[in-house]
């Protein structure tokens, strides 16, 4: 009596793109179109902002002309360096703190106040210690990005269920095997969230520092263009930064989704 065709097919199964993705795309496109319209009709004055299409067009122009290639290369290099350093350092500190509960209890409350500190005020310190050039910029960016990796590492290690710890013991694994084969995979989704944030903060830290303190890089170029009333260049560069950030996020999010799908309830 129990039905063997328990579900009713309404339409063939569709692949990847979910409804939410579709709605989001529509929202973004509509928004951009709206801004474009407001710019073209002059509701948003030309002196305030140029139309998105003009931004994109000029961006393509400067990329082709190679005007800012050096700055772009400098910034990207700094960001990659800062991201890698902060992930490794943050993970190491997180692991250390996790195994020292007293130290952790003392430091954790201070961590969220950390972001209020304008860390680039320590730029002069870094210049003295590290010399002028890319190193102080990277150091400031690392300072900004490392905390989120520490927090995520602590969180990830916390969330490894006790039953997994016990399984590792019962299976008589060595500490290294236990860490690599059980703990790391279990904590990986949370660690990856930390990595995403670290990359984002590394990006922000580098660009912001270049804007305020440096003589080269994308951040500096934007500031220079602003100060010299070169609006088109400025917006083209801002557009480029937006595109880069979005692209990086999309890649990281795809990886994240694969990791999360494993543990979907």
């Amino acid at each position, binding site marked *: *009596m*129990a039905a063997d065709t328990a*579900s009713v097919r309404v339409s063939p199964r569709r692949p990847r793109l979910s409804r939410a993705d579709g709605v989001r795309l529509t929202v973004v496109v509509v928004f951009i179109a709206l801004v474009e319209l407001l710019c073209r009709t002059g509701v948003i004055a030309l002196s305030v902002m140029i139309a998105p299409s003009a931004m994109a067009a000029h961006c393509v122009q400067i990329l082709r002309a190679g005007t800012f290639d050096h700055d772009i290369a400098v910034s990207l290099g700094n960001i990659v360096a800062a991201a890698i350093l902060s992930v490794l350092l943050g993970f190491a500190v997180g692991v250390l703190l996790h195994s020292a509960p007293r130290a952790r209890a003392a430091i954790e409350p201070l961590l969220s106040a950390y972001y209020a500190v304008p860390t680039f005020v320590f730029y002069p310190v870094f210049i003295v210690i590290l010399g002028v050039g890319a190193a102080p910029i990277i150091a400031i960016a690392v300072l900004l990005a490392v905390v989120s990796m520490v927090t995520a590492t602590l969180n990830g290690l916390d969330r490894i269920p006790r039953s997994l710890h016990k399984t590792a013991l019962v299976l008589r694994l060595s500490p290294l095997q236990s860490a690599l084969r059980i703990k790391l995979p279990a904590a990986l989704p949370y660690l990856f969230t930390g990595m995403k944030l670290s990359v984002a903060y590394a990006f922000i830290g580098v660009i912001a520092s270049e804007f305020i303190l440096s003589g080269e890089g994308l951040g500096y170029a934007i500031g220079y263009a602003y100060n010299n009333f070169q609006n088109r260049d400025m917006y083209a560069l801002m557009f480029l930064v937006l595109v880069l950030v979005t692209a990086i996020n999309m890649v990281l999010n795809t990886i994240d989704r694969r990791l999360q799908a494993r543990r979907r309830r």
Partner: protein
Amino acid sequence: MSSVASLIKPVAQSAAQPDAPAARQAHAVLSNVTRYFDRTGSHERFHALGPIDLTLHQGEFFSVVGPSGCGKSTLLDIFAGLAEPTSGSVSFEGREVKGVPDGVGVVFQEDASFPWMNVRDNIGFGLRMAGTDGAEVKRRVDYALGFMGLKDFASAYPAQLSGGMRQRVCIARTLVQQPRLILLDEPFGALDQQTRLLMGDELLRLWRETSATVLLITHALDEAAMLSDRVGVMSSRPGLFIDIVETGWERERDSRIVSTPRFGEVNARLWEKLRVESLKVMGLADGR
């Protein structure tokens, strides 16, 4: 005893006084009800329940048992107005159910006590939301605290209580509102066996005092057999009623009936039907 009745008995009394255990007057009715779900991420529909025809009689204690995933909770949601049937009709006290009707109380399996309020405030929550006068709230809550044995814990917070006590808080919260239909979705599922047996007795006590109609969802056969006037056995998904067993117990019953032969018979009959369905769910169906 009369003070108990005056505070907790529902205001509306049907003409047929609830002396006869099953007054045979329809209280809540499901008629040809089915429920389909849209599966997220695909376009197949998921046939969860039905078609179901079920009439709950005024003042009766009805339990539903069935294998996991058969749709028991969906059935309760439909009675409560928390879910709409895909087809068929639901009525309560003669009126069609749209949203949660007045006079219906629900107790969930998970602990639904609010961790940010103490026990007293938890119990009085529904009354306060309904705008009941402060003095009346206090009176009813005080009564419920005494009745449910929570008097010493009135100022405690749920985090300080055991699972069983938290469920008592949830039951008390439902009861102070004098519901005429009480729906319980595996309320003792998260509790240990001893607590379950004692809570079963308490539930019977409350049922008698309030004269409400009770629908209990449970996976424990002995619980259903002990507590109910009738037990409905559901098939595996999509859930259909394959048997409804009349237990024939007296209204004044408690857990001691488990030692009677009749209890064994009821249990055996329930298991006979349920066993086949449970095997199917586990993927171990033997040929019929």
